């Protein structure tokens, strides 16, 4: 059986069932969904509704007065807020930079450790290490490694490999600060992508490759015409969750740059207003905006790639 046939078969909709059975199946489905939906209702529904509601009020944390409804006032102000737009641009740049590289690198790593070679078990564990170190700590560590006086990265580049003439303050120069922090995020989260893709690779049966090889397909052809299409759902899920996290990026940038405006992200700006400035109304409007931006990305992914094995 060829890869295409396999793909076509998997891409097919689940078969329609007979109507009597269908009703029973539907009941079973909702029953199975019940625990998940219960958790959603308990831990997520109330906070989500609360955020939406607060975004239309003038709620603050430093007053005992009950919040008042102010309509779209917070949103009108937000649309005209230049720092907000700076943060949007920064965040999207960061997201594109990291997600593209993570996807490519993650794919390479997944393919490498999926192939047969000695010590791949150890390699698989080693690969997971960056993801296993708590973000707050790894960010501190990288900040230390990037330091322009006593940082090891400068030492390596200047004294060991002679790639630079003198030490560079990577975190303070606008041109290098965002790439520098993107490198940390890539380091930290590529294992996540790699592991998801690796799991996806596992459900591609070997005989498809065998068939393709018999047909004389090159390595690249096999990758592009067999692996990628069959890995599509795994790629989509990895993309969705990575993008979702990247668009909400907070701690790695906060640890390395504080509130520097050249690197402010949407979540950092949100935290400023919600907590430090105690303006819950405005902060909630920012939260809702972030929600909408992420939703746009998700919709784009789902329509372009499709997370599901159906049209």
């Amino acid at each position, binding site marked *: 059986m060829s890869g295409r046939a396999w793909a076509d078969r998997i891409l097919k909709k689940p078969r329609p069932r007979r109507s009597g059975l269908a009703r029973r199946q539907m009941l079973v489905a909702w029953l199975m969904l019940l625990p998940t939906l219960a958790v959603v209702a308990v831990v997520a529904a109330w906070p989500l509704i609360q955020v939406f509601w607060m975004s239309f009020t003038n709620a603050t944390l430093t007053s005992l007065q009950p919040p008042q409804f102010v309509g779209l006032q917070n949103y009108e102000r937000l649309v005209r807020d230049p720092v907000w737009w700076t943060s949007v641009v920064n965040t999207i740049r960061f997201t594109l*930079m990291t997600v593209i590289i993570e996807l490519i690198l993650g794919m390479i790593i997944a393919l490498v450790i999926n192939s047969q070679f000695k010590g791949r078990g150890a390699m698989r564990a080693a690969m997971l290490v960056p993801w296993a170190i708590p973000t707050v700590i790894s960010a501190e560590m990288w900040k230390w490694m990037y330091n322009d006086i006593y940082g090891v990265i400068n030492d390596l580049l200047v004294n060991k490999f002679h790639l630079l003439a003198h*030490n560079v303050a990577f975190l303070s120069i606008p041109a290098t600060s965002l790439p520098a922090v993107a490198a940390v995020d890539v380091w930290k989260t590529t294992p996540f992508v790699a592991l998801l893709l690796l799991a996806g690779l596992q459900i591609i049966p070997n005989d498809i490759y065998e068939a393709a090889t018999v047909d004389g397909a090159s390595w690249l052809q096999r990758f592009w015409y067999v692996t990628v299409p069959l890995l599509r759902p795994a790629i989509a899920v990895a993309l969705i969750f990575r993008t979702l996290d990247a668009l909400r990026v907070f701690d790695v940038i906060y640890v390395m740059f504080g*509130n520097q405006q050249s690197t402010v992200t949407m979540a*950092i700006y949100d935290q400023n207003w919600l907590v430090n*400035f105690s303006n819950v109304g405005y902060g909630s409007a920012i939260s809702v905006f972030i929600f909408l931006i992420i939703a746009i990305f998700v919709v784009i992914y789902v329509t372009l*790639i499709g997370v599901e094995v159906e049209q």
Partner: protein
Amino acid sequence: MFINRRIAALLAVMVTLLPLLAACGGGGGGATPGAAGTKAPGAPGATATAPIVKPTSAAVTPVSTAAVTGTPSVPVTGTQTPAPVATTTAAPGATTTTGPTGMATSTTAPSGTAVSLTNIPTSKNTAPAVPNAAEAKKYSGQTITYYGDSVGPGHDFDMAAAKQFEKQTGIHVKVIPHPKEADQTYAQYLRLFQAKSPDADVLIIDVIWPGSFAPYLEDLKPALGDSAKTMYPNIIKNDTVDGRLVAMPWFADFGLLYYRKDLLQKYGISGPPQTWDQLEQDAKKVMQGERKSNPNFYGFVFQGNAYEGLTCDALEWLASTGGGTFVNQQGKVTINNPQAAQMLKKVQGWVGTIAPRGVTSYTETESMDAFQGGNALFLRNWPYAWGVANAPGSKIKGKVGVAPLPAASGQQHVATVGGQELAVSRYSQHKQAAIEFVKYLTSPQVEAWRAVAGSYAPTIVAVANNPQVQKAMPVLKVQAVRVTRPAGILGKNYNQGSAAIYQGVNQIENGSDPKSVLPQVQQQLQSLLKK
């Protein structure tokens, strides 16, 4: 295959977007509020214990002491206009004299000297007896939760004090160290207050927070008003919101200049710099020599990241050069003035020359590490740095001196006030017991003990002036006028105002023109004051 085309198209769209965004990136001019910093330097409580107890008079420069002694100075809480600091007038109604700390002390304040300060314990694990044990015993059996210090040895001091208090009063104290980052502590307190939680009775709060937290805090004036009168009036004023004393001052930090004695000597420099120009010259001279053996040697490190710490450093730069204190006592915003612009232009010139280029993302940690690693001649930091620099195993142990920060010639040396206060939550279910605990912690005995055993700068005038305390904590002898951030005037908007200041100054450090940034900061501060 269509799926592949989709993925390829998506990647292509992303890749083309990237340079587009890069082109408009960095964007967003204008100093606009970011947020309060990670580690608010108002909290720089702790100093390492052991080494500081040694008499280290060499550390305090005789030159600087002479420079300020006898010059009447005034609590600088916003009393300044952009006019030179030296011309400030005394607060009405109080005759002022200069205490040895350089901070003006009201002579009308009841002196705490009646309290005997003999037998001050010198170990952080032995707290002094509870003077108010008799009254506190009434609440024996109750349990209070105390959000205490988590910085340096602060937690050990809290545990010892809680143990002693429990032993003598029967009130059980559950000590919770607050989160290490000031921002996180601030957020956690607000969440507890919002939930009207009885899970916090006594809280340690930063000197810049009373304005924000006031609605949630008990008025301590009825119970502690008398002891408040023995403390520095400018801090009491800071902690009084709408006539309510919402927190008790507990320890008061201040900015200092640390320098390498050995290197100054090596290059024939007689003492620490008196002026910023002199600091520049000394730095250049020493850098030139030291760089032959260490290419990463710098003249001056400070806290240049966009966070609360930069507001503290900037306040010192401006106030010591006639640039004012951001907002004056009449509530007029003064930050946009020629002296301030000139000084900040000078600071801009330091970045990448006498200070590392990376200094614009340095907090206390990075600046301390650079100095500690032997890579800097001068360091601006809080009192705790003394203990760190002189700890066993330190590379620069015994080579460090401490002096007031430089000033422009003809101006006074200044130091930004940091420190922590103690407050009682209005949602506490054991308010009386909580107040008794605060009474104990802010008693002269405890403040003296914490100063001697832990180098926490006392807030009670008589304790700070006590010779025994000064002997154990030599940085108390460094003479400089204490300046406070405009927390009282900005009230609950302080964090936003401070963000406007540090964002603006950070942009200037990174190359923006002060003349275009300062008017924007001025405008933002003005709009916050109107609220």
